[in-house]
């Protein structure tokens, strides 16, 4: 299930929904990304996420399909927020359910890595020096590239 929304999400409810009424799932891995109060040494008062409605959902669906092709998954949840968020606010939830924990962990990390480099979101930070757009990180490109070998 993929959702792009302004409002916050309930981590426990999302994870419970993934496994509700199902008894063949061995484990659920999950990652929640949060707004940090500091970036590049500067205080961050708020962060605004902009996205490309229409393309965002398609890009996320493609990334999820790729994860499902690579690992035996019993379910995937991706929820990504947009709009203005404050430090400590949740930005994104990725959760993957599988019979085996290795598949759950790996696919969850994969989804985050690809989402960071292949989904059309942009972050703007409010700092004491003014507003600035967050630059793409080379580490994120490298993290996404490590899954490349098996790319379909």
């Amino acid at each position, binding site marked *: 299930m993929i959702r792009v929304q302004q409002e916050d999400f309930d981590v426990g409810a999302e994870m419970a929904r993934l496994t509700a009424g199902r008894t063949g799932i061995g484990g659920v891995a999950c990652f929640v990304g949060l707004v940090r109060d500091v970036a590049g040494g500067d205080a961050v008062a708020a962060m605004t996420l902009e996205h490309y409605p229409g393309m965002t959902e398609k890009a996320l669906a493609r990334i999820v399909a790729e994860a499902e092709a690579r690992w035996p998954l019993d379910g995937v949840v991706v929820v990504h927020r947009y709009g203005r968020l404050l430090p400590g606010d949740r930005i994104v939830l990725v959760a993957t359910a599988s019979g085996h924990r290795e598949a759950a962990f790996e696919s969850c990390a994969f989804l985050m890595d690809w989402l960071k480099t*292949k989904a*059309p979101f*942009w972050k703007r930070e409010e700092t004491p020096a003014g507003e600035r757009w967050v630059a793409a990180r080379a580490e994120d490109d490298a993290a996404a590239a490590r899954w490349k070998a098996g790319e379909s």
Partner: protein
Amino acid sequence: MKLLYFAWLKQRIGVAEETVAPPAEVRTVAALVDWLRARGPGYAQAFADLSTIRVAVNQEFARLDAAIGPDDEVALFPPVTGG
């Protein structure tokens, strides 16, 4: 042709979205960007360094040499930073 701009590209150009009708010889994203540059200083500044520009054609990532036509939706934006 529908154009969309995001993040700082949108701010420099000053619009989020516009419909344009470039001449017939504009058949790739690169040619479109060249044509846009001549539209004003905001465009010229936004497209000063192509290494910082990413492209989607009809909501799929594409390269600067991707072919485009009058019915396409072309989006121009900096590298993504979500997650």
